[in-house]
């Protein structure tokens, strides 16, 4: 794992949580969507908060697929769950949502999970790993 790869994982955590917060802010502005008026969700994408949220979630997605190209799914997901702490802070201090002590404890437990995977190997299944190197080698050969 290089510093650049840790930066990509940090990007997944930060862009994801800030993007979700912007979507939440926007959807509260749009209001409840009735089960009888489901198409209203498509009009929600015109809200500036929603547009900003979607923009950040694109950045999240780019960082996420980049991480998946060199790490296991079961490494990337817990390693980036530190974003939930950030999300809880945004929810409490910016969106003014009620974050109960139970939820804080839940968020702490999720974060503890990060510690268990972060020290382990990022990639464990050899088959795809070899396929990946074969792919890169063939690309190198072409150029």
């Amino acid at each position, binding site marked *: 794992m290089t510093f650049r790869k840790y930066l990509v994982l940090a990007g997944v955590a930060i862009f994801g949580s800030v993007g979700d917060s912007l*979507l939440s802010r926007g959807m509260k502005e749009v209001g409840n969507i009735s089960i009888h008026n489901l198409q209203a969700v498509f009009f929600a994408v015109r809200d500036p908060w929603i547009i900003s949220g979607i923009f950040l979630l694109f950045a999240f997605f780019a960082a996420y697929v980049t991480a998946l190209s060199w790490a296991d799914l079961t490494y990337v997901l817990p390693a980036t769950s530190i974003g939930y702490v950030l*999300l809880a802070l945004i929810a409490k201090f910016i969106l003014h949502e009620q974050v109960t002590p139970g939820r804080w404890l*839940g*968020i702490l437990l999720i974060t503890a*999970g990060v510690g268990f995977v972060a020290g382990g190997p990022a990639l464990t299944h050899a088959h*795809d790993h070899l396929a*990946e190197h074969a792919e890169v080698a063939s690309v190198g050969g072409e150029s």
Partner: protein
Amino acid sequence: MKHAYTWGAIAVIVAASVTGDVLMSRAMKQVGDVGELWRKRGMLVVIGRVLRHPYFVLGILAMAVAFFSLLFGLSWGDVSLVAPATASLTFVGNAAAAKVLRHEHVDQRRWIAACLVACGVALLAA
């Protein structure tokens, strides 16, 4: 009733996300290390390879379902419940799916992480 809608949305988001993540993981492993490809062939080649991969396209479709379900979920429930609950349940579902479908080595370390996250989710939902 609103509570039932929120949890219904969470269930749909989790199912669609696990499908999307597994497809995406498979596609990206086949594409190869994006950083190395980028240095050797440039950004456009990387983007072209990724966007043309059939599993990537299917993964995007599954994630689109998850995204619109997330919009519904966020309009019915708090972000500090919906977002961590869906993503954490997705993680637990992914641990099982990655082991069975992607043959990832989900060792003791990763199962402990899964249990911690599962407990965290239970507390978030309480």
